[in-house]
């Protein structure tokens, strides 16, 4: 495989790991964030504990916990499945690592980012005026309906900018997976530099690709923000009376 091919496969794995992890992060984080705004005491305590645990342990340490520790503390049957059967389940293309490494990386990145998404969602909902909740309740909405029709539609629009930042961060954090053997983009650039001693060129190429990813994401999110904009709402630039 040519070195360009190495870069391409590295980029592909960076994108795959990040996007799969984002799916977990967004759904789990949304649920946790919403729970933290409800008056339900025990679910709220659990969600808060989750956020505190996942944001106070370094991502790299969490990666090791998932890859080295998790198989040992789950029931033996599960641990063996993860380490022995999962790799044989699917042959991963252009990879010198197995489905197990990929799963561990995605789970780690997803659960870690979920704690950050939870905070954003919570902040977005809390930023809405109390009057909106009251207006919904006064009409006879149940609390779940208030979330569904009033709080979440506006809350999510408010947090598109910080969510963009989280989405970008997940692409950057995907590089941590190289420590458990995932040959994503950063790892490949290192490999190329070791083989060719053209360190500067290899790193520059990888850096450029990361910059392109970043710019693409920023552009996409801005487009999304424009599409979802509510005419006349104060936080938008246009509209108003």
């Amino acid at each position, binding site marked *: 495989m040519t070195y360009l091919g190495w870069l391409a496969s590295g980029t592909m794995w960076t994108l795959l790991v990040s996007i799969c992890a984002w799916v977990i992060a967004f759904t789990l984080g949304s649920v946790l964030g919403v729970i933290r705004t409800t008056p339900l005491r025990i679910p709220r305590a659990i969600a808060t504990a989750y956020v505190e645990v996942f944001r106070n342990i370094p991502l790299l340490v969490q990666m090791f916990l998932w890859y080295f520790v998790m198989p040992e503390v789950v029931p033996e049957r599960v641990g063996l499945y993860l380490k022995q059967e999962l790799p044989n389940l699917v042959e991963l293309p252009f990879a010198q690592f197995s489905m197990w490494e990929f799963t561990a990386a995605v789970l780690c990145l997803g659960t870690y980012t979920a704690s950050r998404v939870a905070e954003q969602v919570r902040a977005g909902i809390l930023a809405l005026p109390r*009057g909106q909740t009251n207006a919904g309740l006064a009409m006879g909405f149940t609390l779940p309906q208030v979330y569904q029709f009033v709080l979440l539609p506006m809350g999510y629009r408010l947090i598109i900018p910080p969510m963009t930042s989280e989405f970008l961060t997940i692409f950057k954090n995907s590089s941590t997976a190289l420590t458990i053997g995932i040959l994503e983009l950063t790892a490949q650039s290192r490999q190329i530099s070791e083989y060719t001693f053209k360190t500067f060129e290899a790193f520059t190429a990888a850096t450029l690709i990361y910059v392109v990813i970043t710019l693409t994401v920023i552009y996409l999110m801005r487009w999304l923000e424009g599409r979802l904009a509510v005419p006349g709402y104060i936080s938008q630039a246009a509209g108003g009376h």
Partner: protein
Amino acid sequence: MNATAPAAGPMIQIKDVSKWYGTFQVLTDCTTSVAKGEVVVVCGPSGSGKSTLIKAVNALEPFQKGEIYVDGAPVHDPKTNLSKLRSRIGMVFQNFELFPHMKIRENLTIGQMKVLGRSREQATEHGLKYLDRVGLIAQKDKYPGQLSGGQQQRVAIARALSMDPIAMLFDEPTSALDPEMINEVLDVMVGLAKEGMTMMCVTHEMGFARTVANRVIFMDRGSIVEDCTKDEFFNTQRSERAQQFLSKILHH
């Protein structure tokens, strides 16, 4: 000091309601009632608890002591279906609180569809009827952010009316409006009163009170200090606190 209730049970009945925020008492033994078709204006200085009291009527503000009944249904009872209760009471807020991400027509129909179970066609027809009533049928496809404050508040009133409420609560409906828009909202409220809607309004607009109110309640520091007919309130000597308040307000 209390007005006597009419023969049929009052629409809204408030008995010895007290509320605390922690150790701070915001409502003290409030007792009053609103009969069917009556218009009651609640006034008082800021911090007097009038907003809290009116929000207690549809359980937006829970209270620790006392009882409130709306058309016989106990608001304070944990077993009461609050969603159902609230759907029968309309409320209009100081900051309008239209849902910004929905067009005007959706604001009008969402409650009817999701709470009352009406079909989209029924809800739209019903909602637009009230939108026309308040003179804003042309705005039906706009978003709240594109309307002026006065227009938004009139839509809010139409939204509450589309639910066919048995009573309407108003929490300082004109306090957030620029002066030139206050009258367009008050006109709608006067029209409602003349049609016989049971209304409880927290407001500083004494002109409105003089025009359509049956009774005026004056609150100060969490207690009901005055509760008498409109004529008694404005024309005869009342308590000193009420006098002070009136003189400050009526200077405008």
